[in-house]
Structures are given as structure tokens and as C-alpha cells.
């Protein structure tokens, strides 16, 4: 019967208030629709075939998800043509794209670029994104620094030249290379932080002369990466100074937070696939899932998945509410979900035995999605380092 603080806001939250971490009925309905679509159009043989053909991005599937189901506009308010939903719904969609290892630029366009544009307040692009007419990507390396509270622009890789004679005063030309950008190949518009004081965020036509997108061979072939090189490319400023820095930081924070939900989806799919398999696979005249050694390992995976889900839901709830605890929530979720996904995927490969080590079985798609997702937008260790600063647990002083 300890009480820490008054709970007079709505009276139904316990004293150490934790927001509702369950899924609402509306979120479950959204999940069902997305899951049906992905089961139909992104079954793993199709994903594998796309990867094998070197055509990972599934443009038709993305158009259905983004425009027909309206998932591109979840974060965008209705007055701009979006669905007026929140990061809670966006996180549910991410769980499903993770579960299916779907090759769609959902995280990079509908979450990260959209969050940046919401920060910048660019109605025109937001409307086009919400309608699914355009796809955008934030031109920042996907490995990313962990978003830190109050993060400001450091030295960004793209330089800005002043307008030339005869050009509009606001126009600028951008030059530089950003390495390892996710979603760049599928994007129509690149959002490019241009170095300088003040920092500016520019919208760049991805097909303009002077833009070169060089595909990389990525560890996770279901999420293509590219080096983006700009050579005197015109850019339209969409945010300047504090607004630009804030938009980029918000995009990275939301990206890490929603990626955590995607990784949770990967983890849950790995667990479910493995449980199904060990019930069917028989050795020594028994289902291998009846051996205690395997049961205990799967129980540990289930525990990790259960913990990760709570962390992911907390991050989504904090992002939705603009809660001051968001940096803590995102660091916790990204670290926990990344490690849970990697554990679940590694156990998925191991407990499938030989078949799990083959190219034909989907376990490797999930393993690569899990491992690269856990590294992207800040490794678990970097997020824990950020957490240490946020919660006042400083490292030892240097010798």
C-alpha cells in the first residue's frame, strides 16, 4: 500500500502511472487487415523470390499498404488527408511488417520521413505522402546515432552552396554523400539535412539530375540500403535551425521507437514458427518439443518476447502522448526488442536444426531482419549508454 504520488488525472491509473499498454480494439482491427494483406501478398516464398531476383522493394504491395489501406497516413492528421491516428497504430503496422519481413519502405517513409515533415510542418508533401502519391526517405545513415535528448546537428555530410545568379533566393544546391540510407531506392523525395549554421532540412527530388543512389549489398536484403550522392542538386528548404534539428531528432527517435515494435513482431514470429516446428518434428520417437532442454529454451524466448512487447507498447504510448519520458522509453524498447528479436531468431535457426540453416527456409530472412534491425538506429549498447545519461547512472570517471 505504498503511494508515490497522487493520481488525480483520471483516477484509474495506479499511482506509479503506466499508460495503457494493451492493444485497443481498433488497433487489433488494423492489425487484422494488414496481416491479411501481407499473408496474401508477402508470404515468405514471395519475399525470398524478390530477394533472389534483386528486386527487394515490392512497389505494388507498398502502394496497396500505403494508399489503399491508408497506412502511409496514420500519423498525418485528417485535415492533411491522413488518418489522424498515432504512433500506437503505426507500431502495430510495424509489428506486422516485421513479422512478414515485408519489403516495403513503411518505417522509412510513413514513420521517419513523415515525422520529420510533421516537425517541419510541410503540408504539401504530407498530403502527397498521406495519399500514397509520393514516398520519402530521410537521408541519414540507417546505422544512425541513438537519438539523444536535445540532440543537435553535428557535422552533416551534405554541404550547401548558396544560390547562383538568376536563381531564387531560397534555392540551394546540395553536394555530398550519405552512406547506408534505408528506403532511399524506393523514395521519390529525399529529406536531406544540409550542414551549416543554421542547419536546414531540404526536400530533394530523388530523380533529379545529380542524384545518384548506389544500391549496397545489405545484411538484411529485405531492407535495401543505398549510398546517396548529391552533386550540386537543387533543394527546397522545409525547415531551418531549431525546427530542422528538432524534425530530424524526432524522426530518429520515432524511427527507433517504431523499429522496436517491428523487431518485436520479428521476435514473435520466430517464436511461433519454432513452437509449431518442434511440435511436428519427431526424433527418438517423440516430438522434439517434448524434450525439456528445448522447452526451457523456448520458455526463455517467450519471456523475452513478453518483456519486449511491454517495452515496445510503452515507447509507442510515449511517442503518441509526447511524454517527457519518450527518450527513456525509446532507448529501453530499442535495446530490449533488438535483443529479444536476435535471441528469438537465433533460437529459431538452432531449434529448426539443419533445415533452419538452409536458404530455402525463411528462418534466415527473420534472422537477418532481426540482427540488422537491432543494429540500426543505435545498437542495444548505444541505447543503454544513452539511458545511463538519461537516468543519472554515470560511467566511472576517466582515469
Amino acid at each position, binding site marked *: 500500500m505504498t503511494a508515490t504520488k497522487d493520481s488525480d488525472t483520471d483516477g484509474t491509473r495506479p499511482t506509479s502511472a503506466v499508460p495503457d499498454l494493451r492493444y485497443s480494439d481498433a488497433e487489433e482491427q488494423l492489425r487484422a487487415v494488414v496481416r491479411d494483406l501481407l499473408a496474401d501478398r508477402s508470404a515468405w516464398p514471395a519475399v525470398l523470390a524478390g530477394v533472389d531476383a534483386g528486386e527487394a522493394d515490392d512497389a505494388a504491395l507498398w502502394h496497396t499498404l500505403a494508399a489503399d489501406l491508408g497506412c502511409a497516413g496514420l500519423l498525418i492528421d485528417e485535415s492533411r488527408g491522413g488518418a489522424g491516428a498515432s504512433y500506437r497504430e503505426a507500431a502495430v503496422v510495424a509489428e506486422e511488417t516485421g513479422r512478414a519481413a515485408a519489403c516495403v519502405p513503411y518505417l522509412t517513409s510513413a514513420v521517419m520521413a513523415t515525422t520529420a515533415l510533421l516537425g517541419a510542418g510541410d503540408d504539401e508533401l504530407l498530403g502527397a505522402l498521406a495519399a500514397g502519391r509520393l514516398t520519402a526517405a530521410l537521408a541519414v545513415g540507417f546505422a544512425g546515432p541513438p537519438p539523444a535528448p536535445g540532440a543537435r546537428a553535428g557535422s552533416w555530410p551534405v554541404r550547401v552552396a548558396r544560390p547562383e545568379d538568376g536563381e531564387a533566393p531560397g534555392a540551394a544546391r546540395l553536394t555530398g554523400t550519405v552512406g547506408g540510407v534505408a528506403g532511399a531506392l524506393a523514395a521519390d523525395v529525399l529529406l536531406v539535412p544540409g550542414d551549416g549554421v543554421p542547419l536546414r532540412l531540404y526536400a530533394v527530388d530523388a530523380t533529379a539530375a545529380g542524384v545518384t543512389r548506389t544500391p549496397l549489398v545489405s545484411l538484411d536484403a529485405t531492407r535495401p540500403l543505398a549510398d546517396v550522392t548529391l552533386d550540386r542538386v537543387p533543394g527546397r528548404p522545409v525547415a531551418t535551425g531549431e525546427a530542422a534539428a528538432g524534425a530530424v531528432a524526432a524522426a530518429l527517435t520515432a524511427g527507433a521507437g517504431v523499429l522496436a515494435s517491428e523487431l518485436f513482431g520479428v521476435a514473435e514470429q520466430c517464436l511461433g514458427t519454432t513452437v509449431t516446428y518442434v511440435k511436428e518434428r519427431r526424433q527418438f520417437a517423440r516430438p522434439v518439443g517434448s524434450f525439456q532442454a528445448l522447452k526451457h529454451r523456448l520458455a526463455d524466448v517467450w519471456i523475452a518476447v513478453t518483456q519486449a512487447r511491454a517495452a515496445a507498447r510503452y515507447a509507442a504510448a510515449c511517442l503518441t502522448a509526447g511524454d517527457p519520458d519518450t527518450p527513456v522509453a525509446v532507448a*529501453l524498447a530499442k535495446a*530490449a526488442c533488438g535483443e529479444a528479436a536476435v535471441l528469438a531468431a537465433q533460437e529459431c535457426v538452432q531449434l529448426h536444426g539443419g533445415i533452419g540453416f538452409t536458404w530455402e527456409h525463411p528462418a534466415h530472412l527473420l534472422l537477418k531482419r532481426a540482427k540488422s534491425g537491432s543494429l540500426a538506429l543505435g545498437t542495444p549498447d548505444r541505447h543503454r549508454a544513452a539511458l545511463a545519461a538519461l537516468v543519472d547512472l554515470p560511467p566511472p570517471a576517466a582515469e
Partner: protein
Amino acid sequence: MLTGADQAAGLRQQVRDFLAGHDPAALPRLDFLRARFDAGLAWVHYPAGLGGQGLPRALQAAVDADFAAAGAPDNNPARIGIGLGMAAPTILAYGSEEQQRRWLRPLWTGEEVWCQLFSEPGAGSDLAGLATRAVRVPGDGEAGGGWRVTGQKVWTSIAHAARWGLLLARTDPDVPKHAGLTYFGLDMTGHGVEVRPLRQLTGEAEFNEVFLTDAAVADTDRIGGVGEGWRVAQATLMNERIAIGGGALPREGGMVGVAANAWREHPEARTPGLHDRLIRLWADAEVARLAGARLRQQLAAGAPGPEGSAAKIVFARLNQELSAFDLEFAGPGGLRYDDWTLRRPEALSFFGRGPGYRYLRARGNSIEGGTSEILRNIIAERVLGLPAEPRTDTRVPWKDLPR
């Protein structure tokens, strides 16, 4: 239908009205607690007439906070944890109306302490194999006759202070082990009940051995049907795991707060390795806290399921690793211990005393209330649906099992 906010506001008005009529500074403690129970403000999620109002469990925290803020006495929940956490939900689920009326009020006020008589020297993880016998004696005073109980129980917390015991005993040795058990409330003050301290590796005797020799139990104190004891015991055990692993705490509540504060107060003792461990443990503890909150949100209306087993496994691991951290961080003090004399604490505390005690006490967390290994079996079989190991002990009569 009232919204949560309306219900909460109404409840808090009830607390104010109650306090206006019952001055906590003037009334004797027990009178105050009994009146609070009778007003339905003890546990608001319990039914009307049994200390509650049939409201969502989540509304209780604000009621407790308002009583605490008014300087009202509480029921010392740490002293009656087994009664509140295990006996009460079991009695509510399986007890008769008369049992509920008889037992729940003094349980909640702390007038009657409850203990749990489950484990035996020969029945730990294999609880259903227990050997304590309850034999029916016809027409023994009480209507419907009674029972005579003989056997030995062990790991009984707080038995030395208990008025009642939750007793699981074998009433039919001729059927398979799970089918021959019956559940009782045992009067710990009756004849034939002997409680002896059981000293544990911390030096104290938080637990007891209980020897039962023809101890009398009225049939009216049977909880659930004859032969249904295993099902009733499951309710107790699921609630026990929630009670151990699922309590609502603020951030840095419990052992992690002890470790984090020590880190902040002693910069001279910091090392890179310990920093990495502490941050991992802090993050794991906070995620576990969120998972516990989510579990309670799901349980707000229903009964605990096997999911509580995860909370209990995680709690045990974190407590063990945090208390080990704590001891390593303590410097030269880590080589000392506060007191090896045999103490008999009346309330359970995982976080009290020094780091040496906390480290040693935490070793029990993965054993008590279901070992972490048994809980993994429960998760694997009941949550994931994995097949049971082949067994030879569940279909033959208990009396024919090798022992």
C-alpha cells in the same frame, strides 16, 4: 454506466465521508480497520459485503493513497502477505459464502494471519505427490463430521504467527495423485499442530516445519469439493506467483533502486564492468516493471493465468543479479555480514538488512513459490502448448507409486 473517472471520484468522496465519521487519530486501530472493511473500502474489487464494491482493481491504489495521506492506520500488508495475496483470492474463488463471511474480514484487518501448508519434505516441485493424510471421521461435533490430519509440512512462512493454514492434504490414496487431494483451512491453534523454526542459509528462521498429528479439521472448513484440491491449489499458486513477481512498484522500486542509489552515492567504487552490468539490470528491471503493469492491466477483471510465471522468473533473476551487483559494489563491506543469530522475522523483506543478507536471501527467489525450472515447464506446456515429457506417475493410484 459510470466511467472510470466517475467511479474514482465517487470512491474518493466515499473515503472523505468515511474519514469524516471515523477519526483515525481517535479510533483504536482495529476498530478503524473493521469499519473500513465494512464500508467496502478495504479492496474495492471484492464483492459488496466482503470489504469491496465490485469495482475495478485499479481503483484501489487511489483509495489506499487517500487513507495514507489522512494518517490512517493500514493493515500492515507485509505481515499478512500470504493472507492477502493467496488465501483471500482462493477463498473468494472456491470458498462457501459462510467461509467468505467468516474468514475474509479478520484476514484483511490482520486479526488472523494465514500461512500456506503445501510443500513437504517429499513433495517440493512434485507437489501433487504429497503424503499428508486427511481421514474422514464421521459425526464429529460439527455438522457433516470432520477430518483428522497427519503429516509434515515444510517451508511454511509465518506459521508461528498464523491462526489459519491453507492445507493441501491427501484424502484418497487409491486414485492417481492429482485426483486424491482436498483443500482445507486448518486452525493452527488446535491440538496436534506443532510449529518448529526452520533455519535457512541467511541464519534466520523465516520459515517453519509444521508437524500435524491427528489435527482436527471441521468439514465446514473444507475449501472446494473432496478430491478437487489440486484445482483449488492452482488458484493459490497462480496468485502466489503474481504476489511474488507482479507487485506494482514505481520506477526504481525494489532492489534496483538500492543498487542505483548506491552507484550514485559512491563514485569512487565505480568500474566500467559494473557500470555495464548496472545499466543492463536497470533496463531489464524497468522493462519487467512495464511488463508487470501490462499484465495487471490485462488481469484487471480476470484471474491470473500462467503469464504470471514469467514475471516471477524475471523477478527472481533480477533480484539475484542485482543483489550480487550490490555486494560486489559494497567494497570491503561486502566481506562482512550483519548478524548470524537465529531471528524469527514477522514480516517478509527481500530488500531489508545489509547487502550480504540480500544476496543470500535472493537465492531463495528462484526456489520458493515454484522453482524457475518448474515455471519454465508451465510456460512451455500451458502457454506454448508443447507436449509434456512422457510420465509414469499420473495414471496409477498414488499408493502404488515408488517412494
